């Protein structure tokens, strides 16, 4: 035992494993460590957070499978666990794939060694192939740990919930097939994103890759969101799949893994076998592409770092300068607004954290809006003549997009760009400046106005000018109210203040947001559809607009002077404050 322990200690402190540990740490840590005021998550925290969704959702499944709940509902307490759980199984597969894929997107720029690693490791007596293998080993460990961690709770809890009344043999089969499927789905999600990353890095010039990777990541986030929403519609369709594999069933990758799961459970119809085969082929393909592209990227980006680092490219002036000059003349009246607007605009498009925040919210909005629109069109096709009134679902589409866009922009404004660099604003700007809200307003409107500008021609085309103009006006007013509400006490230059401290009422805020979403979209759209049929209903909007405006006006007026000063650092309010009166 002692010799095993000694052997392990010798091995774990040996150069290869130490290098591997360094690669794992590098993947999980930030580029220079977290700056003060930024969110800093340790590996343990990240792993703990990743395992919670599966755990909670497994427990919520008791509503479907709990024998007492079924008995109280008057439903039969006996059911076929494989057939009954197919829908939820699909959901867990999607969850595993999306979470693992999201982690790969989040750590996209840390997965392959870069120039900083080259600067630190190349001068040491370590061969390039050793660094290659150590990083590859670290990535493999990461993929395995991630797959196990994301699914750890769900792997045990879900089978326990579903098979509570089954024999131990049925439970064992269910447990084994469920665990294997969701772990394979996680691995697929992670490797698919890594394969995409590798392909981009291998094919594109380094400078082009650096500039465009942020957009690629946002696009992948959009795809993951869309994949997530398939868990609400695909399982129902899969139940009517029959024995003949349909072409559409092969589209979403989670369907492949559902097929694999069913095959492992003995459901060997042609449809499931075809899908199961696609899962295995897909997994092998992404693994192979990942390995090949990783090798190419390593050779290209890491080994040749010395040459690429020495040649600093000249770069080109950004093309937006003409647009900025136009905005200076029309919109941005002061030096503060001109400088900070340009800074904010460039940060949104070039800084990853902010682009992700906005991209994530916008993706969710577009996906939900698309789902709503498709569901509405399934019930009733779009009219071909004016005079008809659109359904509440159709009316809610621009409201959904506007809601998430404004929420995303205002949330992103609170995320700091490198915090230490904000000295340039602390130094040059008067702390009593009151231009933060007008500036933030102009930033939000820059994105919202073009997004909603398509409202008028689209609705006018299908439902006539009256409906088009009325709806566009209502959406505009609602978006302005939402924006004013979110920016009411905003006193920061976007992206220059530390993150707010974790607040105990974050759950209440989340609940308010969900309620706000339904009020902003569904309720408004329903009342609007009544109003378009009977204009008297428009009166219902007047007290809402007036009341909100009055409340906002009063709330703003209750701010004392010091509450209007520029903020560069969020401070927690302490219950007891020690005053240093001695010095």
């Amino acid at each position: 035992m002692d010799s095993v322990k000694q052997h392990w200690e010798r091995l774990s402190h040996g150069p290869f494993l130490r290098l591997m540990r360094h690669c794992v740490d590098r993947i999980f840590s930030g580029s220079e460590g977290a700056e003060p005021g930024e969110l800093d998550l340790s590996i343990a925290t990240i792993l703990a957070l990743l395992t919670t969704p599966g755990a909670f959702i497994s427990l919520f499944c008791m509503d479907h499978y709990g024998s007492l709940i079924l008995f109280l509902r008057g439903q039969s307490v006996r059911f076929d666990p494989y057939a009954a759980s197919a829908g939820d199984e699909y959901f867990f597969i999607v969850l595993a794939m999306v979470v693992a894929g999201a982690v790969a997107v989040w750590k996209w720029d840390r997965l392959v060694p870069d120039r900083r690693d080259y600067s630190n490791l190349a001068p040491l007596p370590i061969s390039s192939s050793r660094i290659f293998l150590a990083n590859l080993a670290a990535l493999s460990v990461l993929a395995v740990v991630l797959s196990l961690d994301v699914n750890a709770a769900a792997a045990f809890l879900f089978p326990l919930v579903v098979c509570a009344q089954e024999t131990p043999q049925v439970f064992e089969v269910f447990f084994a097939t469920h665990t294997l499927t969701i772990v394979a789905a996680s691995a697929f999600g992670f490797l698919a994103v890594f394969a995409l990353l590798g392909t981009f890095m291998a094919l594109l010039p380094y400078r082009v890759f650096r500039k465009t990777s942020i957009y690629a990541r946002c696009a992948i986030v959009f795809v993951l969101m869309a994949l997530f929403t398939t868990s609400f519609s695909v399982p129902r369709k899969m139940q009517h799949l029959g024995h003949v594999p349909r072409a559409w069933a092969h589209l979403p990758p989670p369907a492949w893994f559902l097929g694999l799961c069913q095959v492992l459970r003995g459901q060997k119809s042609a449809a499931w076998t075809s899908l199961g085969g696609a899962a295995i082929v897909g997994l092998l393909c992404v693994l192979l592409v990942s390995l090949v592209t990783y090798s190419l990227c390593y050779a290209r980006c890491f080994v040749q770092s010395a040459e690429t680092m020495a040649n600093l490219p000249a770069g080109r002036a950004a093309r937006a300068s003409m647009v900025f000059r136009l905005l200076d003349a029309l919109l941005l009246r002061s030096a503060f607004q001109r400088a900070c607007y340009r800074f904010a605009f460039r940060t949104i498009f070039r800084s990853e954290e902010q682009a992700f925040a906005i991209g994530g919210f916008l993706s969710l909005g577009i996906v939900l809006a698309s789902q709503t629109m498709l569901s509405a069109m399934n019930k009733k096709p779009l009219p071909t003549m004016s005079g008809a009134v659109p359904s509440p679902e159709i009316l809610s589409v621009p409201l959904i997009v506007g809601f998430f866009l404004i929420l995303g922009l205002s949330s992103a404004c609170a995320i700091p760009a490198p915090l230490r660099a904000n000295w340039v604003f602390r130094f040059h700007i008067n702390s009593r400046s009151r231009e933060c809200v007008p500036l933030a307003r102009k930033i939000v409107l820059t994105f919202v106005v073009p997004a909603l500008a398509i409202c008028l021609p689209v609705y006018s085309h299908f439902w006539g000018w009256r409906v088009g103009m009325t709806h566009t006006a209502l959406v505009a007013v609602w978006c302005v109210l939402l924006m004013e509400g979110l920016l009411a006490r905003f006193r920061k230059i976007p992206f220059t203040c530390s993150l707010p401290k974790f607040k105990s009422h974050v759950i209440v805020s989340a609940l308010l947001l969900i309620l706000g979403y339904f009020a902003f979209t569904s309720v408004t759209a329903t009342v609007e559809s009544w109003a378009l049929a009977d204009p008297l209903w428009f009166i219902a909007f007047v007290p809402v607009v007036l009341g909100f405006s009055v409340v906002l006006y009063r709330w703003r007026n209750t701010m004392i002077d010091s509450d209007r000063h520029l903020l560069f650092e969020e401070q927690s309010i302490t219950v007891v404050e020690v005053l240093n009166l001695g010095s």
Partner: protein
Amino acid sequence: MAAALEARGLRKCYTAAPAVSEVTFGLHAGEVLGCLGANGAGKSTIVKMLTGLSEPTRGQVLSFGVSIHKDLVAYRRRLGYVPEEPELYAYLSGWEYLEMVGTLRGMERAQMTKKIDALLALFSLAPYRHSSIGSYSKGMRQRILLIAALLHDPEILILDEPLSGLDVVSAMIVKSLIKTLGEHGKAIFYCSHVLEVVEKVCSHVMILSKGKVIAYAPTTELHRMVGQGSLEQAFVHLVADRDAEQTASEIVEVMSAGAA
């Protein structure tokens, strides 16, 4: 004539022990005041108070006889500042960063653009002006900071290790620049660890140790006052608490310990 920049009894406490205590000096137009001290002597703390980024626990910072905190905005219009660490937004290009600074200062656009282009060329950064700052070397970032500090023709300059990371030619240019600016009536507060540069460019020297001013005199007289042959010897005499040669020998001993 009131001093362009004056510190009176400055004191700053972060904890019970003060970081800076009873610092008093005056800097007139045309003077270059060098501030020397070991790590932790309080140089950066003083710089933060002089720039208004930090308020003193006690004491005042005055500019032309008026407390800077009476109108910080007006004071900073006359001030150019180069911080010790080149903390910049890596995703902006050099040109975009300077444009942002010039716009924040309310400079007229056409004149600002001309000045930025000219200064970038003079600091040998013109070919890289549209590359992102993230791809710049340390020396290039330092030059960007210098340009940002000089863009609006300030009356007072506070430079914290401005030569850090600069190549030999750029360092020579900056040293000549500091001397020339002093001759043109600018008041310059120059923080550094490099004694030779301070000796060459500064008209006055202030030496700090543990937050206190332990020497303050014209450069040419300081080492004579302390009875030493050079500024370096004067500094070692006043501040150094370790024998450099002894420490070097101990380092070599540790290095070679355990070698086969």
